[in-house]
């Protein structure tokens, strides 16, 4: 097990990803040097746009596979999900690192990013988000440290293993707080955010959706990784995983309806127009169809599982963008569409994340090829 070589295969797809990531890096430097006005289409009406909406709000939620898997595997000890634990946590770690980069690019005075660590605006939901995301990223780095020290800096492995239980518990507690708080950010938008989305329950909705999108992301990711890296997780394991998501989605759907009725906002659902249509799209594509797939024989095969994963993830993306853009449209008015540089950074960040994932998955024991490596 001594001198393993570091490997990174270069394929055509990877060349494209490298190019996209490099372009994003160049724009990022340009943005940090020249400001937000030169790179983004953000303005006084639309202070938040694609970067906050997708890179941060959606990114954190899509990385929710980390904490939902951690809860199932490490807290509740459902050992059959062990095979997906490490890859889910790695995706999550990378997701959060990308979110940090996205946030850093979006804040106007980036040299001041550390201020809330010392100047405590604890009345702000953003304060909780900031602290929890920072701490959780640190926790995830330590969690990954346990994996990494199997190969590098091996003397650290034992002490890291010792503190792992605390890290795992923090690793579920912190995301519970900040996943809900990302929804909590928009509670103050009362009267501005469209009633289809604004609700005092918004934090709960964000929390639930970030949890049930976890299995969806794990399904997509293991399928892709299975193809790229020759690693396959059995369908029945994925199916019982998405069953857990499905149950949560049913509760989510019921709560949404009850909440809309309670706030006298149910009429907006079928009122037509941009908001209603986007809301219906989000709920049908992202919740109702996945529920049907989940509880019918459709989810017995890989195609059904992948469809569930893709639709649920797409629904979540639409949901978050609906909160940030569609739902705010009536209040803020027209006047924002992301610039090409905003798109390029977002696409490049995701590309970079995929590349790092592939590198780590090929060089560390992520996909459960432990035995294979031991014997080799």
């Amino acid at each position: 097990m001594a001198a393993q070589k570091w490997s990174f295969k270069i394929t055509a797809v990877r060349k494209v990803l490298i190019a996209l990531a490099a372009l994003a890096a160049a724009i990022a430097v340009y943005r940090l040097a020249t400001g937000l006005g030169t790179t983004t289409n953000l303005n006084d009406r639309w202070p938040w746009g694609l970067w906050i909406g997708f890179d941060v709000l959606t990114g954190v939620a899509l990385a929710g596979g980390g904490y939902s898997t951690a809860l199932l595997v490490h807290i509740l000890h459902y050992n059959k999900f062990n095979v997906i634990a490490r890859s889910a946590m790695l995706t999550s770690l990378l997701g959060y690192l990308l979110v940090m980069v996205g946030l850093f690019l979006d804040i106007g005075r980036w040299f001041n990013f550390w201020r809330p660590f010392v100047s405590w605006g604890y009345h702000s939901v953003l304060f909780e988000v900031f602290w929890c995301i920072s701490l959780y990223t640190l926790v995830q780095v330590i969690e990954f440290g346990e994996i990494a020290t199997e190969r590098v800096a091996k003397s650290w492995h034992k002490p890291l293993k010792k503190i792992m239980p605390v890290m795992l518990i923090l690793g579920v507690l912190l995301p519970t707080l900040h996943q809900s708080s990302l929804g909590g950010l928009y509670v103050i938008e009362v009267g501005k955010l469209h009633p289809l989305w604004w609700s005092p329950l918004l934090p709960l909705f964000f929390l639930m959706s970030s949890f049930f999108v976890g299995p969806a992301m794990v399904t997509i990711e293991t399928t892709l990784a299975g193809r790229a890296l020759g690693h396959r997780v059995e369908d029945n394991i994925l199916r019982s995983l998405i069953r857990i998501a499905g149950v949560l989605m049913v509760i989510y759907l019921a709560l949404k309806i009850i909440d809309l009725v309670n706030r006298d906002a149910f009429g907006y659902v079928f009122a037509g127009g941009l908001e209603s249509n986007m809301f219906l799209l989000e709920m049908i594509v992202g919740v109702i169809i996945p529920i049907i797939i989940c509880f019918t024989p459709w989810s017995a095969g890989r195609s059904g599982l992948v469809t569930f994963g893709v639709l649920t993830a797409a629904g979540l993306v639409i949901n978050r963008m609906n909160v940030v853009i569609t739902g705010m449209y009536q209040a803020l008015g027209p006047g924002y569409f992301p610039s090409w540089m905003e798109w390029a950074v977002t696409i490049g960040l995701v590309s970079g994340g995929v590349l790092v994932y592939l590198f780590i998955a090929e060089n560390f024991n992520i996909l459960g090829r432990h035995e294979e490596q031991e014997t080799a």
Partner: protein
Amino acid sequence: MLTLSVLVDLTRCTGCKACQTACKQWNDLPAGIPEFDNNLTFPSKTDGNTYTVVQHRVTKKDGQDVMRFAKMQCLHCLEPACVSACFAKALQKTAEGPVVYYPHLCVGCRYCMLACPFNVPKYEWDEVFPLISKCQYCFDPNGRYDRVGRGQKPACVDSCPNDTMIFGNRDEILKEAWNRINGDPKYVKHVYGEKEAGGTNWLYISDVPFETFGFRTGVTERPLPEYTHDYLKWTPTVIAAWGGLLTLMYLYTKRRGEVGKEQGQDKNISA
């Protein structure tokens, strides 16, 4: 309530923009080349270099075309959403009433802009390291731009040739506002800022609907920080209860797994 308030009586405003100019001069804010919008309004809204703008509107009153003007700036809420939204304490409410921005603490996240129910905070988009821009109520803890802290009126109030604005304690100002409304039927029966967002330090009365100038109507009367507090107050409980539950579940299911293994082994041995 002993906080400093301004009553703006829009029926007295002639749209001369002396207040807008005084504000720019006092606060060393650069001027722009006029590109008039909505009759004689320039700029069309407050922006990174403009704390206050006089809106010019032609509207109908009793079947006749009339011109009306409204000076817009930060309303200095009694319980400001922006202050509650700032995670670095870059916006703070002073005891006297002004909501003041401390640039050195600002991270530039722009959550205040979204949180404000009146869309007041603006941003210096053209700068490399932009700051939030909003009326400071001529209150400057560093002294340089301070007037109110030294017992003077704000620059805009001082510059008004028509006594459109009066400056004083909120209780007296509010009483005066209702006296004027009740004493003259031309007024709209509403003091804008009395109850909006839980009440503001700047109060407006008008003889044409407030919507004319783009004042937001239907603003909740509950202070916005309370909405956030209703959610955030659960944080300690969630940390204690969920953290405790997670620990218990971790220990319980782990032990259960171990016991299961031991019993499994026992069975194997006995078999």
